C-alpha cells in the first residue's frame, strides 16, 4: 500500500512574508536590548498595579459635578473640532483632489502641507495653541482641528478621486464650471464616505481629547491626571469609568450607523 503523504503545503505562498517576519523579530530584539528596561524592577512592582486598581475600584462620587462638567466639556470640544474640521476638510480636500480643479501643482502642494501637519501628534499642536491662546476650550478645539483637518483632507481627497472620471467628463461637456461640478457631482457622491470617516474620527477625537487634559489643557484628562497625582483614586476611578463608557457608546453607535450604510 502506498503510504506516501499528500503534500499540504500551499504553493502560492508569498515568499516575502518569512523574510519580513524574521526582520521584525530581529528588530524587536534589538529594540528591547536598546531600551534597557529594568524588567526585574518592573516585575517586583507588578503587585502594586493590583493595589492601584483596587483603589480605583473604590469609586468616589463626591466630586461628581466637577467630573461631569469636565466630561461635557471634553465631549463638546471633540464634537466642535470634528464639525469645524469637517467643513475645512471638505474645502481643502477639494483643493487636494486631483480631479476637481485639475491643477497638479496646487493639489501636490496642499497634500504635502497636510502630510506634515498630520505627521505631528495632536498634543503637540494643542500645547502650541495653549501658548498662543491661553487656557480654555479654544486651544483644545484649535489644536484638535489641526490634526483632524489634515486627516480629513487626505481621506476626503481620496474619496473625491474615487469618483469615476466619466461623471466629471459628462458635466464638463455640458460646460459646467469646476465649482458646480464639485458641489453637484463629486460631493454628493462621496457623502456616504464622508459620514463614515467622520464617525471613525469622532472616536479618535474623543480619546485624544480625553488625553489633552494631561498635557495641560482642561477637560476630563486634567481631572484624571490631577486626581491620580494627588492619590485621589476614587475620583480618578469614576472619571476613567466615564471616559470608557462614552468611548464605548460612540463605538457602538458608529457600528450601528456603518451597518445602516452598508
Amino acid at each position, binding site marked *: 500500500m502506498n503510504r506516501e503523504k499528500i503534500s499540504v503545503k*500551499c504553493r502560492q*505562498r*508569498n515568499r*516575502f*512574508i518569512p523574510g519580513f517576519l524574521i526582520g*521584525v523579530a530581529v*528588530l*524587536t530584539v534589538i*529594540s*528591547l536590548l*536598546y*531600551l*534597557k*528596561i*529594568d*524588567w526585574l524592577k*518592573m516585575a517586583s*512592582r507588578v503587585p502594586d*498595579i493590583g493595589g*492601584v*486598581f483596587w483603589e*480605583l475600584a473604590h469609586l468616589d462620587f463626591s466630586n461628581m459635578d466637577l467630573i461631569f462638567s469636565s466630561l461635557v*466639556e471634553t*465631549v*463638546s*470640544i471633540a*464634537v*466642535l473640532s470634528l*464639525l*469645524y474640521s*469637517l467643513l475645512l476638510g471638505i474645502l481643502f480636500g477639494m483643493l487636494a483632489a486631483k480631479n476637481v480643479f485639475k491643477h497638479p501643482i496646487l493639489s501636490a502642494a496642499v497634500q504635502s502641507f497636510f502630510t*506634515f501637519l498630520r*505627521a*505631528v*501628534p495632536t*498634543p*503637540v499642536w494643542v*500645547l502650541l495653541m495653549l*501658548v*498662543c*491662546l491661553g487656557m480654555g*476650550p*479654544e486651544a483644545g*478645539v484649535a489644536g484638535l482641528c489641526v490634526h483632524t483637518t489634515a486627516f480629513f483632507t487626505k481621506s476626503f481627497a481620496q474619496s473625491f478621486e474615487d469618483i469615476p472620471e466619466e461623471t466629471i467628463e459628462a458635466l464638463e461637456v455640458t460646460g459646467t464650471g469646476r465649482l458646480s461640478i464639485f458641489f453637484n457631482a463629486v460631493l454628493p457622491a462621496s*457623502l456616504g464616505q464622508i459620514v463614515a470617516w467622520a464617525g471613525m474620527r469622532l472616536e479618535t477625537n474623543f480619546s*485624544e481629547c*480625553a*488625553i489633552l487634559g*494631561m*498635557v495641560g489643557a482642561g477637560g476630563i*484628562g486634567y481631572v*484624571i*491626571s490631577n486626581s491620580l*497625582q494627588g492619590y485621589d483614586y476614587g475620583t480618578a476611578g469614576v472619571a*476613567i469609568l466615564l*471616559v*470608557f463608557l462614552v*468611548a*464605548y457608546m460612540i*463605538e457602538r453607535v458608529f457600528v450601528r450607523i456603518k451597518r445602516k450604510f452598508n
Partner: protein
Amino acid sequence: MTKRIPLIARDLKRLYTGFLIAAVLLFIVCSVLTNFNVMTLIANGDAFWEFITEDFLPPALPKADRIPGVLSSVLVTLALAMSATTVAAVFAFFVALFGSERVSPFPRLAKLVRGFATFLRNIPALVWAFILFSSLGIGTGVGFVALFITSFAFMVRAFVETMEDVSQDCVESLQAVGASFPQRVTQAILPSCLSGFLSWFLYCVEVNIRASTIVGMVGGGGVGLTLFSYIKSFQYDIALSIILLVAVMVIVVDRVTGKLRKEILK
C-alpha cells in the same frame, strides 16, 4: 411649468437632511456649552502671527552637545513603538484565537475575551500610562507597558475581525475531518489570515510611533520628553526643529510600512 427632477433618491435625501440637522443642533449645543467662538481665534490672529513669526520661525538647532541626545531619544521612541507592537501582536494572536466563536475551542468564552479587549481598548494609552506611573514609577518600561496594553487590545479586535471575514469553509471542513485545534490554526487560519494580520500589525506600528511620542511627553522617555521640555522652557525655535524631526520620522515610517504592506498583500 417646470418641474425639477430630484437628483438624489428621496430616502437618501431624508437621511442626509437628518444628518445635517443633527450636526447643526450639535454645533449649537456644544458652542453654548464651551463658550467657543471662532471670532476669538480671528481676534487673536495678531498674537498668533507674532508667535509664529517671532518665536517659532526660523527653526533653530539645539546646542551641539545636545544633538546626540536628541537623536538617541528618537531611537528610543522608534524602539519603544517597534518592540511594544511586536510583543503585543504575538500575545494578541494567541488571544484572538479564543476571541472568535467559530475558531475558538471554547466558543462560550469568546464574548468574554472580546469584552475584555474592548475594555482595554477604550481607555486611551495616556490614561493607562498615568495609571501605571502611579504604580510602576516613571520610565521607558511604563511607556512600553502602556503601549503594549492598547495595541494588544486593538489587535485582538482587528485579528478577530480578520478571521471572521475570511471564509469559514476551510476551518469547518478541517473540523469535519477531525483536525485538532492546533492543526486548524496552522493549516487553515494562518495561511489565509497571515497577510491580513501583518497588515494590521503595520498599521499598529504607524499608530504607535505617534502614541509613543505622546506617552513620552508625560514621562515615558523618548523624543516626546525632549520636545516637552523644550516647549516648557519656552525655546520654541528649538522645539520647532524637533517637531520637524518627529514629522520626518513619522512620514518615513509611514512610507516604509506602506511599501511593506504592498509587498505583503501581493
